[in-house]
């Protein structure tokens, strides 16, 4: 049996990734996902760990700088033969670099000197720093909307837009992989998006709860004051 059939039982034992986004409760906890991923070979498990270590924000500390990120990109790409996985990593690094550049420019900063990111676009960004979308709107069609959301100071909207773009990229790559290792990696990366998505929802819910609580307390105070008068 070829590698394309390497993880049939593992993939079919996972709920459809699209269901992750419609479920009220996560259909698969990280604990259960990790248990299913124990079917991976040691080499594939290590490759997946390196890719997640690179792409998951939670694995970065506040003090980590661009050099840490570049070292992780190098470690993840080292010996990685799959063109699909390499493309996923490169696209994600490009995406983060462009958004970082947008944020730096919004703060009035210029392009950082030297090779400040492992992205292929670093030089292009520096050369087109003053263009609203770095002359990348054809190559990255999602960029104008991201720039607008940043300009509108809508961080939650920007995060959801970026998660949506990332999810679509994974969908595109996943269309050619069904039961192989790439399919498993794509599933795990989608699961990570779902997890961040649900957390951003939780933050929105917390804000809404605070607003409602403030309103309730304000009306309570008014009633209380009227009663006291």
């Amino acid at each position, binding site marked *: *049996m070829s590698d394309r*059939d390497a993880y*049939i*039982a*593992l*993939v*079919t*034992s*996972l*709920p*459809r990734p699209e*269901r992750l986004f419609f479920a009220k409760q996560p259909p698969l906890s990280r604990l259960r996902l990790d248990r*299913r991923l124990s079917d991976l070979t040691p080499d594939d498990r290590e490759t997946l760990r390196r890719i997640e270590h690179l792409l998951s924000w939670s694995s970065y500390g506040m003090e980590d700088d661009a050099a840490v990120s570049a070292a992780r990109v190098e470690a993840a790409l080292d010996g990685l033969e799959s063109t699909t996985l390499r493309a996923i990593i490169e696209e994600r690094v490009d995406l983060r670099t462009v958004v970082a550049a947008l944020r730096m420019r919004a703060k009035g900063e210029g392009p950082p000197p030297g090779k400040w990111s492992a992205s292929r676009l670093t030089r292009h960004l520096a050369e087109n720093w003053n263009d609203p979308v770095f002359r990348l709107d054809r190559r990255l069609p999602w960029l104008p909307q991201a720039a607008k959301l940043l300009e509108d100071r809508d961080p939650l909207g920007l995060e959801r837009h970026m998660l949506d773009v990332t999810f679509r990229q994974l969908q595109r790559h996943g269309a050619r992989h*069904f*039961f192989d290792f790439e399919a498993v990696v794509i599933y795990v990366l989608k699961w990570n998006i779902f997890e961040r998505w649900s957390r951003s929802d939780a933050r929105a819910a917390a804000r809404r709860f605070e607003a409602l609580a403030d309103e309730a307390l304000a009306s309570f105070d008014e009633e209380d004051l009227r009663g006291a008068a």
Partner: protein
Amino acid sequence: MTEFMLVLGWLGIFAPMALGAIASIIGCAIAGQASIGAMVEADGGYGRFVGISAFPSTFVIYGIVIMFSLNREVTPENAAGLFGVGVLAAVALLYCGIWQGRACATAINASKEKPEIFGLSLAPAAIIEGFGVFAFVFALVISAGIS
């Protein structure tokens, strides 16, 4: 040279049976693994999954029937014909079995959470079966013309 021709003739007779068996082994293994995975996630319909995973087992039967239809005394005159028909039919069965297994695995994966598409999801596997039947039937027809 004559011995070599006789070897090719015998190869042609047994190839449909051997490669048909390999096709069924690989196809059933692929679809079977999918059905086991789906049983972990799905709440019911396990019997259907196991049933689908047995679909590729037909190719070994086609192979056996072709083998019997080709089975005759091998002579230098008929060896090339036996080899050509037998080996090409066997290769066709092998591809059908492997790809039908993959089609069944995808059908199981899709229908485990959406049982309403169960019947439709089997269409690709049924089409592949049709191609296998073509190879089978025409191998029988052609074999009648070999002396």
